């Protein structure tokens, strides 16, 4: 059975990225001094990500490959581009921090690239096996990245916790997948959709139990409440650039996967999954808002903030409509930029003695470093959802989609928890601008500064010219049939 090579073009970006990562692995294993090798592999990694992005942008329409196990549609390409941006930014942010911690290893960018391959496989998954393999490739690389500073107890602890809980969630997901296979007799999404559309299928216990277990596994990965326990510890313990990567890229990929699973194979079972998604959304928004209030460590605070934001993104998904998917995509794009910018600011928090993570260390930042204080304040206002910053529009779109789907209660709870959440973001702004000044931070690497300022500008200026993002998301949301 000869196979045409052209049938693989749909997966060309993934192939480029995977091959690039393996070449970089070889490049890193041989050659000069450790620091130099790590930097070289890092920059080349960004180049590989860029080439992958170009290959991605050259695709049009909906392409399938590998017997329909892999699909490349506008939705997949939209999220993949975001993931590539997140991975690239994480590599950029990691250079300076890893070098100063004497943990500059060429494996870090390679693992980030391989994890990105996994995320792209997840986003394009059109089959349960592809879904699982992508998820596992992504997660396995993330476990290692969390523990990459192996001499640091907190980093090792983070890696261990993430690994054990992640393995548990993978088990749940696999169990769900096996139940689905048991009911439908097929692993392809198209086949599951057909079986789920059969009369009586939507109320069949086997199918529903499988769907629920699958949702539990995915909820672990996006750290939606009540499957969020690992998030604060892992975010706090992992090296800060890696935490930035955790908060940005994998969440987008897992949310995109969730959107595809719920809209395509289980599109006909909306009644069944909508309640679960609504519960996850409400619980995540509330916990994200209330649990973050007591935090003093800014990385822990960002962990709770990310839990809350996943809740808001799920509101868009719960709407179960094209507007819902569109608002979800816009939310993901804006969340990505805000997260990367905030973590660039956290990386800039460094004194002679090393990095600092307490919120009190930001005290009086406006006097010592006004540009950074201003940028961070803008990012925090945006995370809180204050108009006219980008974060406000992100929330606005998801709530509008929820209202349109007549989920009024969900939208009201969302707005209220957003108000509660604003408290802790604004508290940091107050600490920066009105408290007594502490000694200035040491100068940061220029590219960390670039990420910070870039994110700040995006957040500030999004309102002036929002149409490219809205149009792209609208085109991407058309990939699903509702």
């Amino acid at each position: 059975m000869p196979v045409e090579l052209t049938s693989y073009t749909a997966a060309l970006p993934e192939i480029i990225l995977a091959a690039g990562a393996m070449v970089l692995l070889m490049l890193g294993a041989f050659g000069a001094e450790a620091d130099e090798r790590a930097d070289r592999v890092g920059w080349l990694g960004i180049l590989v990500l860029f080439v992958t992005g170009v290959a991605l942008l050259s695709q049009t329409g909906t392409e399938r490959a590998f017997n329909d196990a892999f699909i490349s549609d506008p939705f997949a390409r939209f999220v993949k581009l975001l993931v590539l941006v997140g991975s690239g930014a994480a590599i950029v942010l990691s250079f300076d921090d890893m070098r100063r911690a004497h943990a500059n290893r060429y494996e870090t960018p390679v693992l980030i690239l391989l994890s990105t391959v996994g995320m792209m496989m997840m986003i394009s998954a059109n089959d349960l096996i592809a879904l699982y393999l992508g998820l596992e490739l992504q997660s396995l690389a993330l476990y290692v990245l969390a523990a990459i500073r192996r001499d640091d107890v907190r980093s090792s602890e983070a890696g261990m916790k993430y690994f054990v809980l992640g393995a548990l969630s993978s088990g749940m997901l696999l169990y769900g997948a096996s139940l689905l296979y048991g009911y439908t007799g097929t692993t392809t999404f198209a086949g599951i959709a057909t079986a789920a559309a059969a009369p009586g299928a939507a109320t069949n216990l086997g199918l529903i139990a499988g769907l629920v277990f699958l949702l539990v596994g995915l909820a672990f990965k996006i750290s939606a409440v009540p499957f969020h326990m690992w998030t604060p510890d892992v975010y706090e313990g992992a090296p800060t650039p890696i935490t930035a990567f955790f908060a940005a890229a994998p969440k987008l990929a897992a949310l995109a996967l969730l959107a595809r699973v719920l809209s395509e194979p289980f599109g006909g079972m909306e009644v069944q999954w909508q309640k679960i998604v609504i519960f996850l959304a409400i619980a995540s928004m509330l916990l994200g808002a209330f649990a973050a209030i007591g935090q003093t460590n800014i990385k822990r605070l960002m962990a709770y903030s990310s839990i809350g934001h996943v809740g808001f993104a799920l509101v868009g998904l719960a709407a179960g409509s094209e507007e819902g998917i569109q608002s979800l995509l816009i939310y993901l794009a804006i969340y990505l930029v805000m997260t990367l910018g905030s973590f660039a600011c956290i990386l800039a928090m460094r004194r002679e003695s090393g990095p600092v993570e307490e919120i009190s260390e930001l005290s009086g930042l406006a006097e010592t470093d006004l540009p950074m204080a201003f940028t961070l304040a803008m990012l925090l206002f945006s995370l809180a959802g204050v108009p006219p910053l980008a974060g406000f529009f992100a929330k606005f779109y998801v709530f509008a989609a929820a209202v349109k789907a007549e989920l009024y209660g969900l939208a009201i709870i969302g707005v209220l928890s957003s108000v509660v959440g604003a408290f802790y973001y604004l508290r940091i702004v107050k600490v920066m601008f009105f408290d007594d000044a502490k000694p200035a931070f040491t100068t940061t690497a220029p590219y960390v500064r670039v990420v910070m300022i870039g994110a700040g500008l995006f957040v500030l200026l999004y309102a002036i010219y929002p149409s490219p993002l809205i149009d792209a998301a609208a085109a991407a949301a058309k990939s699903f049939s509702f």
Partner: protein
Amino acid sequence: MALTAIFFYLFAVLALASAATVIVAKNPVHAVLFLILTFFNAAGLFILLNAEFLAMLLIIVYVGAVAVLFLFVVMMLDVDFAELRAGFIKNAPVGLLVGGVVLAELVALLAARGIGPVASTLVAQPIPQDLSNTEALGRILYTKYIYFFQGAGLVLLVAMIGAIVLTLRHKEGVKRQSIADQVARGPATAVKMVKVASGGSAIPDSKSDH
């Protein structure tokens, strides 16, 4: 057919019994040995199903590699299993509750017949008549499932990188064997011609060592 049934019940009963013993056994080494017995019985069941490739795979991979690795870990690491079990009674009620809920769900699932009407028509991937099942598996693995095959390969690559990144340490001052250097050694560097005076020592500079 009666013979097949006898073997089926033999393998099945032994597999279940030894699997239960894995959990119950106090001595972890015994537990691993019973695990190996379970694998062997499962392999027997596969052979009854005419899936001899999977049977051999189970023995080679699970018994040959995984279980032996378990044995190594159990015997080489100083893990106090009595201490690990200490929390068992304390956490047992919660565990029983969760386990009970899952069991109830499974029973409900079974009662509700969680198998769809189309499933039975789709499951069979018939083996072509003229092929052994090893060959058939190979054909499908490298054609229809090439994507999954390569994806699994990447997962294993990451696992390998991870193991090396997290554990390999280059210690300073350790004398390592360099095969390249050894091979490159020739008479010019390895042999020293010494003129020995009659009655003298063949060991050069032996006096300076004192």
